[in-house]
């Protein structure tokens, strides 16, 4: 990777982190548990990496096996995380 690409990825990182802090500092305490499980679901975005790693042809390579394990785990994280958050939030009624 070139230094240029690295720097620009760092820009994205810095801006997104700052934005994250601003947004999350405003979430009311009532919603902290759903926030925790919801953001946990978002962290399952590694699923993108897992999918790309699965793309290896032939099972002989460790890469493909690792990718498939990663894919199953990340899917659990994503699907389970969103589902449980939704279940929780569904209960909040006025």
């Amino acid at each position, binding site marked *: 990777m070139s230094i240029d690409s690295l720097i620009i990825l760092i820009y994205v990182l810095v801006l997104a982190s700052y934005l*994250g802090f601003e947004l999350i500092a405003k979430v009311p305490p009532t919603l902290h548990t759903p926030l925790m499980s919801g953001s946990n679901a978002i962290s*399952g975005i590694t699923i993108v990496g*897992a999918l790309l790693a699965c793309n290896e042809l032939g099972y002989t390579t460790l890469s493909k096996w690792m990718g498939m394990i990663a894919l199953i785990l*990340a899917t659990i994280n994503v699907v389970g995380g969103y589902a449980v958050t939704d279940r929780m939030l569904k209960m909040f009624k006025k």
Partner: protein
Amino acid sequence: MNITIQLLYLFSSVLFIIGIKMMNKTKDARAGNLLSSVGMLIAIIATLMQIEVISMVEIFICIIIGSLIGLYYAYKVEMTQIPEMVALFNGFGGLASVAVAISDYWLKSQITVANIDIIILVSIILSVFIGGITFTGSMVAFLKLNGRITGSPITFKGQHPLNLIMLISFILASVATWMNPSDINFMIILVLISLVLGILTVIPIGGADMPVVISLLNSYSGMAACTTGFILNNNVLIVAGALVGASGIILTQIMCKAMNRSLVNVLLGGFGQTVAGEQTEGPSIIVKEVGVEEAAMLFDGASSVIVVPGYGMAVAQAQHVIRELMEQCEKRNISFKFAIHPVAGRMPGHMNVLLAEANISYDKLIEMDEINNEFSNTDLVFIVGANDVVNPAAETNPQSPIFGMPILNAYKARTIIVSKRSMGKGYAGVENELFGYPNCLMLFGDAKQTIAKVVSEIKEL
């Protein structure tokens, strides 16, 4: 890379951001979570567009397996078990990051002949490190909360030096990997060290501190996603990872602040221990008991009631029967509110989730700062399984480990009824003088069972 794919990734990043933003308001939160999941779906679709058709079958099988497991847990879990659940999922996310990093490492160092880029290599090593710690750390937290391993801090001599040695070895192995990328032994060492470090850093922390740890590990899993983003040169991973990282750090801070402890103090562990010694010494408090009928009459006679729920309510699953109590009181025109302490229970917002589960409107849940000067005008405060959050020692006793933690001023009410099973201590392991106050009556027994009895008594009045 294709422009459509890139734009889809951008769109999915924006959806994550808007989803988090919508978590700011209770009424929008569910839609926000949905939006964020749509963002995830779009990211997945964009990725599938780059994939060879040949791999599709395996991919779908993996996705189906993962989805079924995820859905099974998500619908089976009790609301009281949310912390465990988050820990478990979080651990899986961490392990997935490790697996992706290894996969990429293998590809770049063994399959392709090309020299591995230094930035990529650093990202891979960081991914293994953070992901590994997240995985085993979360598993230990899960087992502790689950009760499968002891919740009390496991400490041994030389623990901190050992951690330091592991850390140094990790750095050395990283340098070795850098100098000789194709030697997989070093990578194996890196993976092992980070897995062990995850265990070592979490076992000394008391079971009750686990929510703080989980929140921190959640933040780590976000950072692991970021490093994966650097490996793959992919922005959506970086944006999503940064959001998760920020959310974990802020929640950790909020919990530490509300407990009046520093993060370092939590992480160095052993909090439960010092306290355990104190347990025997405390002066024994003389309390007044109250029976079920008398409690029912007190409710009937009051014109305003504030309920202070705590961890015990979660344990007893007493939220539904409290709703019944509320309905009875409101029928009698008794004003009925809930006072929510920021760290009541074991997770931030824990009480809100449980009371919401019991169909109690979130208007009735009043935050500490807002309700604290209402107690003095309140006839009856009903403390259900709360202990530390109403302990006046936090204000009066500078020796107490909870000194300085803001509390709910329940002691100011005309009459207080406390529902708990025994004189058992709370999370911080300290005596609570409040129970000996002249205006305080103890209603011993499991919260769910005793409150159910109180409700049936009230119905008969």
